[in-house]
């Protein structure tokens, strides 16, 4: 798997996938829908899939001495690596906003959702949706990715819209907690986001392996 991941990083990846990790720092922006950062990271990953398809990457991979299902696992490993790096930046921003900047006026006066545990959990959900809808959808054919990507974009912005809207609903204000307020709830929501990410990634990965086995290249 290490060799396949190295192949993904050195041959298949677009440089934009690496550069767009920095959009994880959008979690520091006040007055901005911070979850758009997760969308931009996904956009960087989409560039890698586009580049890889034009470079006949799948055929090269199939000719390597690996099982076909390992090619799918290699792609998922690369995607999760990039997502993991972005999530680290996002987690760092959340920690800063929960501690050092917890009283900062610029964040307190923010009409958009606060970058807290709930927001981080929702970023996990968006990456889970990317893995499920886009990566899983790509491996239906290993060639076509327009429809899976449009599907992901719609799901992603609906999720962002819902996450931004929820704390405006009476009774759900605690979703927008600042600092260590409602810490238990924030951690539970973060955990739920991680769980959803894992479920969507693992289930779509397993299905993608089965589908890819039957694809004619």
């Amino acid at each position: 798997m290490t060799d396949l991941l190295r192949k993904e990083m050195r041959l298949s990846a677009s440089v934009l996938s690496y550069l767009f990790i920095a959009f994880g720092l959008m979690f520091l922006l006040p007055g901005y829908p911070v979850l758009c950062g997760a969308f931009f990271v996904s956009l960087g990953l989409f560039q890698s899939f586009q580049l890889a398809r034009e470079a006949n990457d799948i055929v090269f991979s199939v000719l390597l001495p690996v099982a076909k299902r390992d090619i799918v696992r290699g792609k998922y490993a690369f995607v999760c690596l990039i997502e993991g790096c972005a999530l680290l930046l996002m987690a760092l921003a959340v920690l800063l906003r929960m501690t050092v900047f917890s009283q900062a006026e610029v964040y307190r006066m923010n009409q958009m959702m606060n970058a807290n545990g709930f927001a981080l959990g929702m970023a996990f959900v968006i990456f889970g949706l990317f893995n499920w809808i886009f990566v899983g959808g790509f491996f239906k054919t290993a060639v076509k990715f327009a429809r899976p990507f449009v599907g992901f974009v719609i799901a992603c912005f609906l999720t962002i819209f819902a996450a931004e809207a929820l704390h405006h609903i009476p009774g759900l204000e605690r979703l927008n907690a600042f600092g260590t307020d409602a810490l238990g709830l924030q951690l539970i929501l973060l955990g739920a986001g991680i769980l959803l990410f894992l479920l969507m990634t693992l289930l779509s990965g397993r299905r993608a392996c089965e589908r890819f086995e039957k694809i004619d290249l």
Partner: protein
Amino acid sequence: MVIAEVRDLVKKYPSFELKKNSFSLESGRITGFIGRNGAGKTTTIKAMLNMIHPDGGEVRYFGLPFLGHEAEIKKRIGYSTGTVSWYPRKKIRDLVEIARRFYDTWDEEAYRSYLRLFEIDETKTPLELSEGMKVKVNLILALAHRAEVLILDEPTSGLDPFSRSELLGLFTELRDRGVTVFFSTHIITDIEKCADDILYISRGRIAAALPKAEFVRQYSRDGERLEDTMLRLETEEGGAAHD
């Protein structure tokens, strides 16, 4: 000794079908896989490499089914499906650097000697190479890990006569070292020059699988060259040759 075996291979497309084909490759022999364009050579080879999903049948190497032992078998075989058509803007050196890590048996010395033999500049990208040179790069990747079997789809296509002759000489040399070579071609003189066995496919059906001398004895008329025999067989309705 049988080193690769294809049993009852079926693949159905809307306008073409591989018809329950069976054949085997003997150790240390060169088998030429011949048939006209669209006869099913590439489909058969892709099925042998799990690049397409057959509708029936089984492929075995070294007595093991390919499915379930894909990675370990692929390490012991070398294969090439046409030209290098991947990563057009990456240097050959970078492609090889990645590929070599997958093989425990990568032979750097052999790799360097094939580079010299084929006069490949590894600092070039596939985009900068001619079609013939791309074929050679693909062959080097197949040859440089001490494969026990070589499966090559039209390796001589696009090569100039000198390179083709060198390559066919190389096949003979490899065969003498015990390597099994299986290559498809529609150039009959390639078969005449170096093949020990002939596998002839016509309209998706293996029409003959015989040692070359036996093939000539069974199908060639007096004074007829192999090329004329193949042309005659192919033009006869449905391909006249049968096992």
